[in-house]
C-alpha cells in the first residue's frame, strides 16, 4: 500500500482529488442538470422530462430575446469602458504617483471600504440620492442649474450603469494595480532617458505592460455584468431587462426548462465573449 502511494502519479491524483470532487458536485453536476432541464417540457402547472427543442425554439423565435441580449451587451460595453477608464486611472495614480508604500496601502484600503457593506445596500443607497426629490436633484435645483427634477437620474439605464460602475470598478483597479506594481521603475527611467514624454511612456511602456491586468479586470467586469439581474431590477425600477432578469422571471413563474435554456445560451455567450478577449492578450504570466 505504501509502495502504491509513493508512485508519483498516484500522489498527484490523490492531491487533485478533493478539488475535483468539490467542482464535480457543485459546478459540473449542476451545470449538467441545467443543460438537461433546458430540453424538458413545461405546462402551466407542471414540468416533465423530455428531449425537445421547444424552449430554444421559443427563445430564438422571440424578438424580446434579441432585445434583451442587446441590452445586456450595451450594459456590459458601457460599464466595461467606464470601469476601465476609472480603474486604470486609479491604479496608475496608486502605482506611479503615490511614492510611499504606506500611503499606497492606505489609499488602496480606502478603495475597498465600500466593499465592507453588501451589494444590495450599496445599490439601494443610490435611491435617496438619485430620486425625484433626492439629494442630487434638490442640490441642482437649489444651485439654479435646473428648474425641473431630472427624471432620468433614477430608474433608468443611467442609474443601472452608474450602479454597475460603482459596484465593479474595484474589480478593475485590483488586477491593474497589481500588474503595474510589477513594472520595474527603471523601465520608466529608461524610457525617459530615451526621450519619451509622459504620454509616450504611458502608451509605449505602461499600457502594453499592463495589458494582462486590464484583461483580468475586464473578464471580472464582463462576467459580473452579464450575469447580473438584481442591479438591473433595482436601479431600473423593473423597467429594463437584461438576460439575468429574463431567467429570474422564468424562475419566478416556475418555468424552469425555459430558464435553463436561457441560462445555457447566456453561458455560451459569456464563454465566447471571454475567449475572444483572451485571443488578444496572454494572461498566463499573471497567473
Amino acid at each position: 500500500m505504501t509502495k502504491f502511494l509513493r508512485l508519483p502519479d498516484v500522489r498527484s491524483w490523490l492531491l487533485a482529488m478533493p478539488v475535483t470532487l468539490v467542482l464535480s458536485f457543485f459546478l459540473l453536476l449542476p451545470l449538467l442538470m441545467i443543460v438537461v432541464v433546458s430540453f424538458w417540457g413545461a405546462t402551466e402547472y407542471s414540468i416533465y422530462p423530455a428531449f425537445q427543442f421547444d424552449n430554444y425554439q421559443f427563445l430564438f423565435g422571440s424578438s424580446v430575446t434579441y432585445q434583451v441580449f442587446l441590452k445586456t451587451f450595451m450594459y456590459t460595453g458601457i460599464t466595461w469602458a467606464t470601469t476601465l477608464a476609472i480603474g486604470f486611472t486609479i491604479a496608475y495614480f496608486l502605482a506611479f504617483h503615490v511614492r510611499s508604500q504606506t500611503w499606497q496601502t492606505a489609499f488602496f484600503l480606502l478603495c475597498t471600504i465600500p466593499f465592507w457593506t453588501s451589494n444590495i445596500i450599496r445599490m439601494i443607497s443610490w435611491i435617496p440620492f438619485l430620486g425625484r426629490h433626492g439629494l442630487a436633484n434638490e442640490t441642482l435645483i437649489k444651485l439654479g442649474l435646473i428648474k425641473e427634477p431630472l427624471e432620468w437620474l433614477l430608474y433608468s439605464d443611467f442609474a443601472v450603469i452608474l450602479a454597475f460602475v460603482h459596484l465593479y470598478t474595484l474589480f478593475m483597479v485590483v488586477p491593474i494595480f497589481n500588474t503595474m506594481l510589477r513594472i520595474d521603475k527603471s523601465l520608466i527611467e529608461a524610457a525617459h532617458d530615451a526621450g519619451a514624454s509622459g504620454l509616450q511612456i504611458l502608451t509605449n511602456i505602461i499600457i502594453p505592460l499592463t495589458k494582462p491586468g486590464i484583461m483580468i479586470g475586464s473578464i471580472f467586469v464582463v462576467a459580473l455584468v452579464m450575469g447580473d439581474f438584481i442591479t438591473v431590477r433595482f436601479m431600473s425600477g423593473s423597467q429594463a431587462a437584461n438576460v439575468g432578469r429574463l431567467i429570474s422571471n422564468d424562475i419566478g413563474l416556475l418555468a424552469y426548462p425555459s430558464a435553463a435554456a436561457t441560462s445555457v445560451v447566456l453561458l455560451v455567450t459569456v464563454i465566447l465573449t471571454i475567449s475572444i478577449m483572451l485571443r488578444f492578450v496572454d494572461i498566463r504570466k499573471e497567473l
Partner: protein
Amino acid sequence: MRSPNDLELVAVTKRYGDAVAVDNVSHLFAAGTYICLLGPSGCGKSSTLRMIAGHESVTDGAIILDGRDISKLPPAQRGTAMMFQSYALFPHMSVRDNVSFSLKLKGEDKASRHRKANEMLELVGMGHLADRLPDQLSGGQQQRAALARALITKPQVLLLDEPLSALDPFLRVKVREELKKIQRELGISFIHVTHGQDEALALADEIVLMNNAVIEQSGSARDVFNAPRSEFVARFLGGHNVVSLEGKRYALRSDRTRLVTPGDEGLDVSVTSHEFLGTHVAVNVIGPGDVELTAMVPEEQFYAAPVEPGDSVRIGWTAQDLHLLAG
C-alpha cells in the same frame, strides 16, 4: 588640454532632506576617457551619476557639457545616455525595438530606425539576436542589448550604473574587456559606477574614488594605486598595508611587504594564517598594537621556507615603498 566635450561638475550638491548624498563636488571628466566612479555603497557615486543623467535633480551647482549647463535639461537633451544596473530592457519589445525606441520617439520611420538599430547591434555582436525578446537572452546578451540601446542616441558621455554587477565572475571579466574596447572604438567618455576596485583598476583611464559624499582621490588607476592619499583609499583599493612608524602612517603595498631575517629593518610579527593564491601566498600576520598586515610572498619563495600560524617572523620593506598618508 580642455576640449569642449569635457564634462564638468561645478560644486554639485545633492541633499535628500537633511542627508547630504553629494557634497559640493567639483571635477573635470576629460573627453574620450574611461572613468570609474568608485566607492563603497552610500558614498554618493550613484547619486552623482544619476544627476549627470538627469534622473535625479541637482540641489545645488552646475553640470557643464559642451559648454552649456545641462543640470536642468531633461535626460534626452543632455548628450548623455544611461545604461541601467538591471539593464531595464522593455520586456514587451524585441531587442531591435528596444534599441530603436529612442529613434521611434523622434519620429524616424521604421526602415531607417531598424537599419540603425541593426548596425548598432552588429557593433556589440548582437546582430543575430535582434528578433528575440529580452527574457530570451542570457545576462551577458541583455547587457549588450542595453549597451546598444544607450549608444544609439549617439551620446557624448555614456553613463553606466554598475553594469557588471548582474553577471557571473567569468563573464564579468570578458564583458569588461568588451566595454573598454567599445569605448576606445567610439572615442566617447564612459563614466562607470562600481564598488569593485578590481573592475576600476582594470578598466579606468581615470579613477574617481568617492567616500562620504566627496571625492577622496582621483587620478590614473596606476597613480591612485601607487600613491593612495589617505588610509581610506589604501584600504579600499586593497593590496595595501597601513603601518604606523614613529607616529606617522604609511601605506605599503602588500606585494612589497617581505618576510625578512631577524636583524633587518622591519617589524616583529606573528603569523595568523596563510592562503595559497596561485602565483603568491598571502601571509596574514599580526604585529605590535594588534595591527593586521598581509605579505604577498611569491609562491616558490614561500614554500622554500614555509611558515605556519603561530610562528614569529619579521616583516620588512624598502624605505622607498613606504608611502606617507595624509591625516
